């Protein structure tokens, strides 16, 4: 009897065979992999153009084996608009953190979404500015201590965490908007499907797709990876509920 070996797990071709600079327990790596798997699945790696943002995700080009344009802080959706209007047949996505997208870049994301640009946006929400050392983000939870909210976020003066996936779902130009997490295998599977759906929405229908991914930042949260992972379920998901907030075809038909 001969043994037939079947390959059941491999590195996506869209992902380079390198180690990342991410801290132990950081979930950028997981989110990167899901994006790469989705590009592989849709067969768009050879026509993919990524738009990198400012923050921990700036090294996009170091991990994805695709062409990349680096955008100024918060401006990735505008840069991606310029790219996509020129390269109409290419697959164009931005990958942005919460400070980038939900603070300095709110104008760019809202208007790119409202124009219904045929791009995909991956929004990584870890409730803090990671690269700069754990300052308060627009998504920092009430009472959460950060290096610029040392006594905890005071909603009376700092305002409330912004729920971007819900906010964008109210715009006519948005075809798909959802929030996922990567804190356990079940959620990772669902996150992968959501990212692929957002990408497919662009590739097959020319629609604007948005996926908010809840992730950890153990270093800046001052937690070990396990505790950080637990925080996603215990504190983040109650405030940032997982789910699909909009899912329509670009022409307005239900899919």
């Amino acid at each position, binding site marked *: 009897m001969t043994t037939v070996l079947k390959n059941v797990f491999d590195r996506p071709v869209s992902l380079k065979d390198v180690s990342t600079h991410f801290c132990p327990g950081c979930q950028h790596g997981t989110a990167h992999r899901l994006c790469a798997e989705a590009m592989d699945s849709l067969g768009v*790696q*050879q*026509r*993919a*153009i990524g*738009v*990198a943002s400012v923050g921990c995700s*700036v090294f996009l*080009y170091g991990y994805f*084996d*695709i*062409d*990349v*344009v*680096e*955008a*100024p802080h918060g*401006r990735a959706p*505008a*840069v*991606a*608009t*310029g*790219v*996509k*209007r*020129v*390269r109409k047949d*290419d*697959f164009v996505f931005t990958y942005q953190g919460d400070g980038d997208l939900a603070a300095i870049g709110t*104008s*760019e994301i*809202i*208007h790119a979404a409202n*124009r219904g640009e045929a791009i995909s946006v991956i929004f990584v929400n870890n409730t803090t500015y990671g690269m700069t050392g754990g300052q308060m983000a627009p998504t920092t939870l009430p009472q959460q201590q950060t290096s610029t909210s040392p006594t905890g976020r005071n909603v009376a003066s700092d305002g409330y965490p912004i729920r971007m996936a819900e906010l964008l779902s109210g715009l006519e130009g948005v075809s798909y908007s959802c929030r996922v997490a990567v804190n356990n295998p079940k959620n990772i599977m669902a996150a992968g499907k959501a990212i692929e759906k957002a990408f497919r929405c662009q590739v097959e229908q020319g629609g604007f797709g948005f996926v908010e991914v809840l992730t950890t930042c153990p270093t800046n949260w001052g937690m070990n990876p396990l505790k950080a992972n637990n925080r996603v379920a215990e504190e983040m998901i109650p405030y940032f509920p997982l789910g699909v907030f909009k899912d329509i075809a670009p022409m307005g038909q239900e899919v």
Partner: protein
Amino acid sequence: MKRLFVKGNEAVAMGALEAGCRYYFGYPITPQSDIPEYISREMPKLGGTFIQAESEIASINMLLGASACGVRAMTSSSSPGISLKQEGISYMAGSELPGLIVNICRSGPGLGGIDASQADYFQSVKGGGHGGYHIIVLAPHTVQEMYDLTMLAFDLADRYRMPAMLLGDAVVGQIKEALVPHPYQQPSDLPTKEWAVSGKQGRSDQRIVKSLFLGDGELEAHNWRLHAKYKQLQDNEVRCETEHVDDADLVVTAFGSAARIVKTAARMAREEGLKVGVIRPITLFPFPIATYQQAAQTVKKMLCVELNAGQMVEDVRLAVNGKVDVAFYGRPPGAGSLPTPEEILVQIKKHCG
């Protein structure tokens, strides 16, 4: 070729479309809105893209994205809007991206006014954003030049892989005069854009357009390379108009709209027998240093006239390096502060004495 009677702003738009620009990103602001209005009407006929962006910041970043794909693209604005674009211009300079930025300069600071001004000279030629860079700066003084220099700006931007700015103002933007449009002829030696992103399309290498360099020595080397290009521009691309400098006792120098007034005043002075010449820089960066140095060998004095309180005069003084005295005449811009030729003539007489 037919002569047309058009506004300077329209000439910019016509020149851009003729030069093959098919992507425009902008935001309304006086006194340049004729440019997006013209392009929004004409661009679709050519199959191009016009986007009225949500802000100046978004429009410069759309330009960054389009330029990264290797196409000719542009934005236009006026002073307050150009301030907003400076972040993106710095990133484009750092990422070595060509592209045209038109500044139809108005008066400031702040909201200022909508009158002609040259108060953005420093911002334009010294690198208006962070990080110690330069961009190509061209200064048209007629409607015809608004057309011609728009085309040249695209060529220089592509040749040196850096942003180019057309620095006009409310006078050359809004004035209507004769334009002889002519077909664009692309220089045969423009480099191909091997760096432009396109999706890998089977290439083994990635194309990355970026301005972040963290490796030991990387950023310094990158900056030296940028500065080597600025030197090349200085050596090869200076453009300057001179009138009667050879026998002049006094050279009056001005760029853009101020040069229109100065040329009239200089002619009036010549009619009165005064030996007056004119130097008009067409490229503000690179600056015509050698022209000033040469003139400084023969003239007794120079007079720099600007529609501001004195900016280019600093570069003129640096160029002549004390060889001749460089006087200045200008008024901070605003309604009613545009000097007349007669006003300049008084200054000429004062300095010819």
